[in-house]
């Protein structure tokens, strides 16, 4: 009898402990690429030590991508390409060539609405400066002559900017790429479920799931006008998700909002919409397309989403004091608008 009781209690101790550990999460954050990086692992099999070691290697990987692709250091590969603009080609790593080719593809498809040669104009606006100045029309007209993705010559492994004064700025794609690299590391290290968040660029990795077919992670979209609130939500499986919004980096001067998403065609902030969220197979695509669609505006932007296989999105714009939105067909019935 006593043995029976013992056996029963041993069993009782094992069963609930399994259920409990299914919820286990290991999460850490750091600051990198001028924003925050948060990595959350949902994996019952991982010990805290293993989880932390894996997160450390993700942190290291994102730093590595930053050192490769920042344009704020002349020593990075992107920095070197910029320094040698109009003078010489620079041999770079295969992964930078890959990212530049992806960027070129999106630039072609959108006829320049997405353009990584936007550097000189972004510099002129300088949204990170403590004092904000609006560049004059003449200055922007002058700088626009240096913005043209067709003047980036990619002859792997060499990259050449045709004109002196040109500047690459991978701000619209590098974070997405870093998220994809992070997810790659998580897969390689055997993690089965995780979310990587690099400044709102999400990489959801849930083994055996696909972007919208499965509801594993609740994705909340920030409210473009109400701090701390959410505009809406949808469920996603393994995917890359990114949002471009005019509320992320901006200043207001004389009642006008100047934000960081610049239309390469005008050199001024794109102003048709206020927020674009893209969900795609990978975060690089989501990152680039959220900017691209924002610049194209609601009609052309939605057409672009519909023409891109595996890409879905939410476009939000302002009408008077209220916000309106449209969904791509794949998000119909899945997106839930939050109560303001």
């Amino acid at each position, binding site marked *: 009898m006593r043995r029976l009781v013992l056996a029963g209690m041993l069993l009782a101790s094992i069963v*609930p402990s399994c259920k409990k550990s299914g919820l286990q999460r290991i999460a850490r954050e*750091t600051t990198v690429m001028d924003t*925050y990086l948060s990595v*959350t692992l949902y994996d019952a099999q991982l010990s805290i030590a293993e989880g932390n070691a894996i997160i450390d290697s993700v942190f290291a990987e994102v730093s590595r991508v930053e050192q490769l692709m920042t344009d704020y250091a002349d020593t990075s590969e992107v920095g070197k390409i910029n320094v040698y603009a109009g003078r010489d080609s620079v041999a770079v790593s295969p992964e930078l060539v890959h990212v530049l080719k992806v960027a070129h593809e999106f630039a072609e498809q959108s006829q320049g609405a997405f353009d990584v040669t936007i550097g000189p104009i972004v510099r002129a606006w300088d949204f990170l400066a403590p004092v904000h100045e609006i560049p004059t029309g003449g200055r922007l007209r002058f700088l626009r002559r240096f913005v043209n993705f067709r003047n980036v010559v990619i002859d792997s492994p060499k990259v050449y900017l045709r004109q002196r004064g040109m500047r690459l700025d991978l701000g619209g794609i590098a974070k997405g790429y870093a998220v994809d690299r992070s997810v790659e590391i998580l897969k390689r290290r055997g993690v089965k479920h995780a*979310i990587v968040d690099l400044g709102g660029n*999400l990489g959801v990795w849930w083994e055996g799931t696909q972007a919208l077919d499965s509801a594993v992670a*609740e*994705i909340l979209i920030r409210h473009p006008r109400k*701090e*701390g609130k959410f505009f809406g939500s949808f469920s996603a499986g393994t995917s890359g998700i990114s949002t471009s919004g005019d509320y992320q980096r901006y200043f207001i001067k004389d009642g006008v909002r100047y934000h960081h998403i610049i239309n390469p065609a005008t050199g001024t902030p794109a102003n048709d919409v206020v927020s674009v969220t893209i969900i795609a197979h990978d975060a690089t695509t989501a990152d680039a397309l959220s900017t691209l669609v924002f610049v194209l505006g609601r009609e052309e932007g939605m057409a672009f989403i519909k023409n891109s296989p595996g890409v879905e999105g939410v476009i939000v714009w302002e009408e008077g004091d209220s916000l309106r939105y449209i969904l791509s067909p794949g998000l119909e019935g899945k997106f839930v608008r939050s109560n303001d």
Partner: protein
Amino acid sequence: MKRLTMGDAALLVVLTACTVGSFFAQDLFASHGFTVLVELRNITVYKGNLSEERKVTVHATYGDVRIQIHEGKVAVVHAECPNKVCVRTGWRGLAGESIICVPNRLVIRILGDGATPVRGITG
């Protein structure tokens, strides 16, 4: 002393009941709400409950950062970093949300409890 007593049997029954009960009473000590974690240069400098009213001052690279926890939300109420993105972030109160000051390398994180869903925030 040599034999098991009625007292032993009663004690065993009571303790077994408590043990079994404790598995079901998890919620009693679980959902005391969320935890606020403040990390400066990757080192935890404060950890506390989001439901407690509190003011925390952190001595960071760019002067003092004043953090306030109020009515289940947290915000940076004062900072001397160049852009004050952290102050502009405003109040945050959802598990998984965070406030970040890049120049100070300061991260304020809201940790959920076991019942927090798998969640990502974009935008």
